[in-house]
């Protein structure tokens, strides 16, 4: 880079500057006024409040795993109907990955067609898999509680027993099996000829079993029969009963608790207030009874209930009897008038359209519910649940139960839709009276709400919170509802939202603590081999939570049994899945139970079902990952089957076996690890070229794990692995997929840790000149990572040249600006140290030309690169280049784009840091005047960088700039005190200190004192801080007189400001305060007896800081005087004031001793007025907590005989 080039660029910019300066409204630097941006208006293109809408802010969920795979790589969980996981017929469509590319993850695009309302709903975000929760059907009926206190007495409690549930499950499985066979048949075209299958389950209930059943169940069956089968009653039980059982007509059969079956849906009555919302025909989700009224055809003639006449016509009249409605039957409640369009009575003929269908108008939704008050919102769907509250029924005529129901409803509505304050009290009421409400009525209302499809995050969170709170109170009363709660809460465990998952875990763990292990197991056992995979998956996760709550040892026997289940592979699969989930939840806490868990699943490694084998190896991987680096002993037994398995498997199961091996190898001794690595490497090398994405991912992971293990040697990796690895994975295609890209970079980095920088760089450096940008980026990212961790010492001259050449090429050719390439280039340059000297001219000229680029981002990056390479320039001793660069940068201070200007200032700052103030080119006295107007820039990045630069100059080279300029800067700095970012305010305050030190405090103080008169509170506070800092740096005696003089200004803001500065001042100067105590006391006297509350509050905080400063320095008399003035403020009620007052008293207690202050307090402790006692006890408590021991000698001597403490009177 010759001087001529520098000159050319400098001249170009200078010309541009002068050309721009002529134009009106230009934002460029105007030498006459020294202002760049004369406009005081906010920019139209920048977001105004960058604090709120911060774009550069780190994601607040960073570090959390905010996406969770619903199946943890266990793809075989899907009940795929393909044979051996592949189709026999070719499938010509885009892959799922391609279709979903823009549906989730980083590339997610908002669906603009969805309404905002919809977007807020949880259901609209869910994947198809998560939506399967709606297919779980209605909530199962309440379960019996076999562990309840009264179960011994043989009392029948309502609810299904374990046996009933298991039977239902069996029937469901059978149903599924049959329907599968039927479907198969139909697919094969054999619809006509139905082959008779031997049902595995007999139609009639097993005699022995039913007899062996509990007496209770049998009794119940008999009782029911009597009620329904009136015709058969007089006949002896024997044959009629048998006949009935044989000929199961759907008509006379009622559901007895012992025989749940597939119910005919059409004749079902939605039971209002029943245990569960009944399933409406054809709907996958349960429907709250009152919702029925809102069905789209609610008022339609076609769907109106059949009248008696119509039924008479349709049904035969003989042989049938019209029965009375069963007790407890309640017809569907009619929606309150005005909520449902009244059915027009007359059809045909002329009809006036009257605007009656007001439910369609959207105006009808009440915002105020009687007895609830004003709600934040009320949705149409809420009406289905809370409609009862507006039906205007007379509460005097209701039973206690109904009243209770309404009470709960009101409270829930308040919690769900109310304002925060309402919510709080309602939640408290619900919690406090949970046991009076009882579990049934509570859960019957809460759980259907949680199943609502239009539920939003906030509502769900609140309802879950309600459950959490009442669980504590209800304790074992929840048992009958455990399953229902689980059905509702389990989906939370696979939610995308981290917090939802946490909530789900907490609820289930509290639930298991309340219900007990035995009940949890008996409740969840039937779901373990549920035909629906979704149910099994969520159950497994829930079981893992139970294990973490109640301890693994307690659950281990059960797990062992489940994993060995002979009856169904699904049970084994779920069992192993539970074992897989436990380490994921518990982490290294599984170590004590590792052996037990591994033994549990060891046998399943050679299961006959491939899915079970797959999930077993995944479970082993999870266990090994959690226990890393310990616990290899526990895995000894399964090593052999795992290895032989890995050799035998292909495809999917091989993937999971490799994964397990990959996690096990790092646990081993070096020797073993080496051996096993060489063994597994054959398979890995074979699979390097596998087209399967999943396989690629696993192979990369395993390679990096092997490379990281101690026993694996560099020589081996170089000779056996590297060539093949680079051939298969360092291809352009890998750079295009984000996930692969990341994996490859990581694996290469891990390999690099073993084989050294040169091996890696040598192989990939030429990719830096590839035509594909993503590939270049991947290369430079890898090189950056390797070089950062290992340095560039082992690169030779030739390689250096190629590397720098390539890096510059990449830097120049980049079209998408992001920091990766910039970081890479910066790292490489710094790592090469003195070796970079040779290439510096080339680098600097690149930077200069890019600094001159038309595009703002390019200029910004060039400036950023300068700030990164200043250290390298220093190392090469090229201060001359830095001088030239800073002159160029100085020219560019007229930059219009704030982002770029910020970077330019940053570059100048790092040059100043490196070369020092003295040698800085241009000299500081030229540079600083240019910075003064820039201080006015409102952009955060600019502010941050300028204030830093100015502060640095003020700190080190203040004398090089005339005082007038510093005063000017002082004025500009005052505005900085209003900045949003705390860092900027802090830097500005410190700069005040530096400037005051440089030019003496008088002028600065004057400026600051004047600023106390401004309106803005934040500005005044910061000014007060700045005064404190000035006092600290220049000595309090320079500031105090002026400050005390300022207090005489009869203006509240100023006086408060002075007090505030005094407070900061005494906080900063600490012990020095003892010289100023008597000087300041009269001022404080005045302030402490002021009428204004805030005044006294601030004065109290001054007292606090003084008192803490002078502890033990002999100012007790003054402190006591101040205490006398502070003490009467004790009865203030405003929280801020009373807090400051109490703090002041605490501080004085430290300064004058506990005994003295307590003498003030004894008088009020038992004062007849509560208003007096309260604050006095607060003081007593504070003293007791802070100086309890020193109070002992000072307790008052009570004259009565009871309390005798003569010990301290002992005198030797």
């Amino acid at each position: 880079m010759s001087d001529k080039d520098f000159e050319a660029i400098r001249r170009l910019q200078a010309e541009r500057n002068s050309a721009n300066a002529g134009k009106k409204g230009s934002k460029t630097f105007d030498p006459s006024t020294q202002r760049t941006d004369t406009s005081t208006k906010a920019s139209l293109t920048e977001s105004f409040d960058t604090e709120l809408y911060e774009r550069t802010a780190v994601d607040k969920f960073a570090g959390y795993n905010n996406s969770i795979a619903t199946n943890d790589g266990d793809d075989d969980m899907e009940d795929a109907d393909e044979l051996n996981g592949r189709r026999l017929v070719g499938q010509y469509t885009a892959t799922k990955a391609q279709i979903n590319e823009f549906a989730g993850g980083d590339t997610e695009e908002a669906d603009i067609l969805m309404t905002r309302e919809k977007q807020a709903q949880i259901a609209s975000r869910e994947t198809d898999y998560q939506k399967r929760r709606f297919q779980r059907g209605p909530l199962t009926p309440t379960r019996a509680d076999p562990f309840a206190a009264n179960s011994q007495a043989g009392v029948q409690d309502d609810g299904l027993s374990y046996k009933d549930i298991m039977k239902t499950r069996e029937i469901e499985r059978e149903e599924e099996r049959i329907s599968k066979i039927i479907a198969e048949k139909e697919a094969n075209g054999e619809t006509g000829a139905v082959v008779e299958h031997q049902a595995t389950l007999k139609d009639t209930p097993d005699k022995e079993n039913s007899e062996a059943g509990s007496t209770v169940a049998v009794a119940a069956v008999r009782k029911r029969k009597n009620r329904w089968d009136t015709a058969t009653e007089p006949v002896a039980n024997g044959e009629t009963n048998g006949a009935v059982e044989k000929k199961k007509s759907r008509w006379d059969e009622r559901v007895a608790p012992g025989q749940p079956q597939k119910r005919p849906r059409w004749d079902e009555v939605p039971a209002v207030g029943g245990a569960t919302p009944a399933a409406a025909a054809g709907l996958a989700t349960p429907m709250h009874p009152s919702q029925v009224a809102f069905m789209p055809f609610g008022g339609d003639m076609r769907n109106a209930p059949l009248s008696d006449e119509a039924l008479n016509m349709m049904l035969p009249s003989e042989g049938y009897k019209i029965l009375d409605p069963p007790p407890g039957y309640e017809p569907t409640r009619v929606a309150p008038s005005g909520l449902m369009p009244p059915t027009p009575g007359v059809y045909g003929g002329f009809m006036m359209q009257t605007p009656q269908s007001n439910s369609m108008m959207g105006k009808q939704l009440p915002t105020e519910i009687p007895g609830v008050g004003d709600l934040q919102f009320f949705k149409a769907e809420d009406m289905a649940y809370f409609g009862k509250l507006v039906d205007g029924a007379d509460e005097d005529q209701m039973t206690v139960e109904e009243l209770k129901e309404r009470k709960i409803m009101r409270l829930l509505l308040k919690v769900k839709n109310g304002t925060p304050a309402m919510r709080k009290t309602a939640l408290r009421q619900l919690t406090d009276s949970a046991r009076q409400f009882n579990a049934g009525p509570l859960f019957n209302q809460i759980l259907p709400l949680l199943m609502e499809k239009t539920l939003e995050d906030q509502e769900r969170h609140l309802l879950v919170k309600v459950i959490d709170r009442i669980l504590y109170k209800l304790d074992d009363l929840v048992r009958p509802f455990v399953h229902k709660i689980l059905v509702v809460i389990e989906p939370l465990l696979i939610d995308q939202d981290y917090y939802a998952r946490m909530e789900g875990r907490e609820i289930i763990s509290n639930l298991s603590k309340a219900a007990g292990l035995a009940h949890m197991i008996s409740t969840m056992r039937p779901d373990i081999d549920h035909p629906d995979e979704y149910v099994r998956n969520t159950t497994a996760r829930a079981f893992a939570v139970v294990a973490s709550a109640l301890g693994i040892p307690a659950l281990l026997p059960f797990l062992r049994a489940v994993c060995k289940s002979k009856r169904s592979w699904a049970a084994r699969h779920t069992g192993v899945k539970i074992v897989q989930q436990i380490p994921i939840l518990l982490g290294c806490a599984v170590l004590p139970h590792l052996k037990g868990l591994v033994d549990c699943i060891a046998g399943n490694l050679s299961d006959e079902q491939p899915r079970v084998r797959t999930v077993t190896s995944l479970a082993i991987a999870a266990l090994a990952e959690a226990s890393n680096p310990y616990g290899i002993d526990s895995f000894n037994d399964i090593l052999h089957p795992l290895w032989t398995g890995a050799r035998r498997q292909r495809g999917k199961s091989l993937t999971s076996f490799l994964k397990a091996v990959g996690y096990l190898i790092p646990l081993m001794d070096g020797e073993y690890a080496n051996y096993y690595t060489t063994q597994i490497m054959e398979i890995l090398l074979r699979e390097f070229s596998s087209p399967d994405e999943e396989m690629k991912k696993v192979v990369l992971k395993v390679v990096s794990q092997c490379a990281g293990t101690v026993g694996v040697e560099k020589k081996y990796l170089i000779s056996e692995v590297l060539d093949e690895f680079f051939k298969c994975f360092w291809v352009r295609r890998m750079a295009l997929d984000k996930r692969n890209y990341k994996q490859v970079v990581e694996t290469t980095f891990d390999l690099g840790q073993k084989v050294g920088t040169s091996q890696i760089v040598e192989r990939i450096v030429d990719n830096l000149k590839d035509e594909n940008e993503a590939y270049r980026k991947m290369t430079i990212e890898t090189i950056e990572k390797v070089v950062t961790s290992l340095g560039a010492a082992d690169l030779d001259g030739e390689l250096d040249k190629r590397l720098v050449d390539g890096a510059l090429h990449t830097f120049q050719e980049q079209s998408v600006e992001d920091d990766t390439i910039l970081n890479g280039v910066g790292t490489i340059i710094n790592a090469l140290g003195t070796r970079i000297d040779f290439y510096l001219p080339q680098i600097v000229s690149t930077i200069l030309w890019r600094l001159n680029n038309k595009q703002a981002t390019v200029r910004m990056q060039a400036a950023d690169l300068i700030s990164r390479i200043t250290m390298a320039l220093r190392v090469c001793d090229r201060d001359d280049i830095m001088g030239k660069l800073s002159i160029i940068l100085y020219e560019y201070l007229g930059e219009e784009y704030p982002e770029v200007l910020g970077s330019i200032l940053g570059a100048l700052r790092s040059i100043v840091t490196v070369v020092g103030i003295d040698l800085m080119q241009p000299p500081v006295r030229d540079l600083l005047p240019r910075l003064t107007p820039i201080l006015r820039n409102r952009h955060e990045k600019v502010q941050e960088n300028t204030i830093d630069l100015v502060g640095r100059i003020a700190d080190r080279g203040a004398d090089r700039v005339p005082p007038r300029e510093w005063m000017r800067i002082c004025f500009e700095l005052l505005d900085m005190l209003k900045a949003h970012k705390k860092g900027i305010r802090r830097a500005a305050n410190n700069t005040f200190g530096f400037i005051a030190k440089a030019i003496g405090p008088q002028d600065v103080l004057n400026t600051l004192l004047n600023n106390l008169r401004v309106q803005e509170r934040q500005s005044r506070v910061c000014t007060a801080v700045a005064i404190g800092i000035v006092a600290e740096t220049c000595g309090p005696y320079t500031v105090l007189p002026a400050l005390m003089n300022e207090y005489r200004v009869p203006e509240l803001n100023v006086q408060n400001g002075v007090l505030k500065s005094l407070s900061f001042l005494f906080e900063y100067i600490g012990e020095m305060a003892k010289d100023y105590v008597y000087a300041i006391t009269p001022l404080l006297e005045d302030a402490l007896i002021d009428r204004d509350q805030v005044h006294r509050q601030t004065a109290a905080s001054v007292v606090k800081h003084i008192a803490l400063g002078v502890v033990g320095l002999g100012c007790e008399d003054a402190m006591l005087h101040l205490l006398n003035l502070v003490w009467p403020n004790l009865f203030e009620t405003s929280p801020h004031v009373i807090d400051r007052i109490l703090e002041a008293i605490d501080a004085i207690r430290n300064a004058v001793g506990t005994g003295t202050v307590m003498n003030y307090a004894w008088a009020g402790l038992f004062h007849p007025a509560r208003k007096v006692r309260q604050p006095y006890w607060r003081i007593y408590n504070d003293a007791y907590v802070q100086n309890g021991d020193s109070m002992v000698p000072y307790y008052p001597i009570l004259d009565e005989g009871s309390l005798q403490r003569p010990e301290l009177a002992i005198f030797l």
Partner: protein
Amino acid sequence: MADKLRAQQQLEALQARYVGTGHADTTKFEWTSNIARDTYSSYIGHPPMLEYISLGMGQPREKVRAQMIDKMIQPVGKPPAVQD
């Protein structure tokens, strides 16, 4: 309202941690009991002080210590009967 609630909660938390703290409804019996117990535990907690007292009382230190611990049980007599 919310402040009151919070103050109440804070007081409860404080009371849970320090038994000796009081509130506006603390009775004389409770307060004096706490004073007595705190006094004795303070004597016991400062061995030199205990030594001094035992010397003055002319009794072995351990004995004085045991006596003091004993005195902490109902230090000011039986609690007053609850009257409705």
